[in-house]
């Protein structure tokens, strides 16, 4: 698979180069069409954002990709292979990791332990190795700890120093970082970030934007992003898809999406900046069906 930069607004026929591809994916909860005929192509090393008003089905799309839900119809391909019907942990092993909108860390485990759980798919120790503390087991645990610290150091010194802290004691921004470190621990190719700046102040948001970029540039990850803050999405994304009532109503470069009339009508209301910001703040929570 060649790594090519996301260069144009060309949308159709991009399937060949796509790392992740959704084909006519539909999810129905009883009578409610949460997601309807959504097509998406995410290319390698691209930062791709999904935006849309509340209840548009953004988080549902994430849950479909990561195997928490099974699509009612349609196909999801990753790296050319269909991942529909695989269990969530198999999908993680195939190379997709995620974070959650309302942070799902293991609160009564330490920072380090959280990242170690993230490495679960990478570790191989069996019952006998564990019970007899075989040399392989020790080496593996040692390496896992080192790697966990390395992952934490991606976010600077602060988390490394607090590695023994229970995560519940961390600040909100630090929890987000630990969650990303945990996701990275599984060595993903594709990282799904569900509102990575929710609940952050401006300085923290700016920092989050920086590290999301670094994730792509330094680690070579492909990133699929749900984001409410338009400032973040517009600044960071290579391409954006807009969902409304479970349907994709637009897709393209940030500039194109910003000018798209359907988008303005459905999501932004009126095209003035102030109004956008207000919308943004009032945006209540996308119904997180994972609860």
């Amino acid at each position, binding site marked *: 698979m060649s790594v090519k930069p996301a260069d144009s607004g060309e949308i159709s026929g991009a399937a060949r180069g796509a790392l992740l591809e959704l084909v006519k994916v539909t999810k129905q909860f009883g009578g409610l069409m949460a997601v309807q005929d959504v097509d998406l192509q995410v290319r390698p090393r691209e930062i791709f954002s999904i935006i849309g008003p509340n209840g548009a089905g953004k988080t549902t799309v994430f849950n479909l990709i990561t195997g928490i839900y099974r699509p009612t119809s349609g196909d999801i391909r990753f790296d050319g292979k269909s991942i529909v019907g695989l269990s*969530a*942990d198999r999908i*993680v092993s195939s190379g997709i*990791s995620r974070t*959650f909108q309302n942070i799902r860390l293991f609160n009564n*485990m330490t920072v380090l332990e959280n990242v170690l759980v993230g490495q679960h798919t990478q570790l191989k120790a069996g019952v006998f190795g564990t019970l007899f503390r075989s040399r392989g087991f020790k080496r593996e645990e040692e390496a896992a700890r080192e790697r966990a610290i390395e992952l934490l150091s991606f976010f600077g010194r602060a988390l490394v*120093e607090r590695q023994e802290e229970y995560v519940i004691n961390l600040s*909100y921004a630090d929890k987000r970082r630990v969650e990303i470190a945990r996701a990275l621990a599984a060595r993903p190719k594709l990282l799904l970030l569900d509102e990575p700046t929710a609940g952050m102040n401006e300085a923290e948001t700016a920092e989050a934007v920086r590290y999301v970029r670094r994730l792509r540039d330094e680690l070579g990850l492909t990133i699929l992003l749900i984001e409410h803050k338009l400032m973040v999405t517009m600044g960071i994304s290579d391409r954006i898809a807009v969902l409304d009532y479970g349907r994709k109503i637009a897709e393209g470069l940030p500039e194109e999406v910003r000018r798209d009339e359907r988008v303005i009508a459905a999501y932004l209301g009126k095209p003035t900046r102030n109004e956008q910001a207000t919308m943004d703040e009032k*945006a209540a929570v996308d119904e997180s069906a994972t609860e």
Partner: protein
Amino acid sequence: MSTSVSSGMLLPTPDTRRLLIKWVVALIVPVVVFTLWSGESIINAVISPATAAGNVPTDPVSLIEAAIFTVVFYIAVLLLAGYLVAADTGRRSIIETWADVLIFAVVPLILIILFGLIIGLALCAIVWPLYILIKNQIRKARHYTPPAPLESLTVIDAEQRAILAGRATAGSFWFALAFAVISLVVDLVYFFSGSLPVILLIWAIVRTIILPVAGYFLGRLAGQIALRRTIPEKGNGNGGNGAHRGKRVASVQQQLEALSTTRVREEAKDLVPNDLPLRSSGAQRFYLILLVAFVLFYPVLDPFLFGSGTDGRLAGYGDAGYYVILALGLNIVVGFAGLLDLGYVAFFAIGSYAWGMIGSTQFGYITGIHVNPQIWPWFFWPMILGAALIAALWGVLLGAPTLRLRGDYLAIVTLGFGEIVPIVFLEMDKYTNGTNGIVGVYSPALPGVDWSSSTPYYYLILALIVLVIFANVRLRDSRLGRAWIAIREDEIAAESSGVNLVRTKLFAFAAGAFFSGIAGAYHAAKLGSVSPDNFSFGDSVIYLAMVVIGGIGSIPGVIVGALAVYAINVLILAQLDSLAANPNNFLYPVHNAIAAVFPGFTFGNIRNLIFGVILVIIMIYRPEGLIPSARRKRELRHAEGDEAVEIGSLDVPPGAPGFEDEVRVE
């Protein structure tokens, strides 16, 4: 006496003198109590078996074991004295230390002397929380705040190291001397009252000379042990420019070399010197030595400690032991993986029947194979593993249908299994002999061991418990254990981190069942019979109570929980009636008074009521269990907000109502 060994080190400076008084007094009281109670009689029996009391063992093997225990005991205590003097910063008050030692060492000793081991310890479980409660009340009333924690690690330079070493030597020496003098006085009193044989008087004199010398050398050793827990000065010596002398702060770099900030704080508790040396892991090492020596030599010591009836007591501890294994096994399922299992007794029954059906003439009856009673008991050893594996297999089979269930629903289904399995054994009477059960189950076989006494079972269960604890600890601190805790914390996050829910849960069920299979095989062999009514829903609840009372997810906790519940339920409540029948017991008038109002009253009638009330009281005052795991403690205490949360972090945990609003406000 002191002048003969004295050196500069042994004549304490005023600083050291305070520490010496503090620790010599603190330690000498429990040691003297123990010595007067039994230590002395053990030594006397070893030195002149002829003068020993009637019921104590006089065979050489027992005496040698008893002697080893005594030597280990006094050496450990002397070392501990030196270590504590060296490890104390002296910032906590003397009275507080004395009160702690009184409650945590002297009171248990006295309770054990009065009521026996298990009941004594069970009473301690009541006294200790009360003491802590009262202590906190007093502190609050007097507005006492403990000294602020040492916020940084201090480097100990060569000069201070010499002082610490000197303190340790002085600590052990003065302690030994004080102890020798007290013992000598007591012995002289006995001698002049004519009840001390001459040989023991000679020993008393020898001892008075040996002890201080031993104290001096053991003190030096204790000093070396203590110094290993200090932070030595780095060679270049540029550590403290301008810092006040003798209290140089370890450089930040040094602190963070291998440690995170949290760990620095944790580590500081164990370093020498620190504020609470009694609780430091250095001191814990000595407690462990004492505990291991005590448990290992217990069958020999028992007659010295508690007089006649040793075999019956050991049988009781053999039973308490399999409760410990069951609690540890259930702790994996409930404590680590968070799967509420109300039918755990099913696996215990399967393990019991596994050995019951194979290790008895029933096997020949079923299969037609001739069961040779000379050979058959040997199969116990492979079958203890076999029974565990069979139970584990059933753990997987019974666990499979419950995988999609959580919490209450899971509990109901496991409850069903707990009911079904004993009924199956009851109804398969062609193989299991139905209601009568299987009798004549073989004991294990081992050359030269007499399995008709309780001692071999004591050692067998001890070995099994050690193995099970070992396996538990290793599983917990591994990838598998982390996966269990992760699914307990958050299933969705766990599977999104790559944890296979099916495999992890089934493994938890299998591991839990495996250990109960071990307990089952042991139980069948010890009891010599198996019958379906040994396994009721009530038993499952008792096992769960052990885990919860001890501390969910905490390995030391569930061990204590198992012993506590066993003591309350089997040793205390079951014997209330026989105690009340004795006119000298304080329960006798109580029973008569109640029986006057309610004719026909027995304590047996309200046994479960009392047990229930005790459980409720424990859960109200100690919801996290007797020895909570660090995680669990956090979990339950967090709500009270005594945990420092960083400014800027949100108070509302994710998922709680109100969280979303809070997150949205920007």
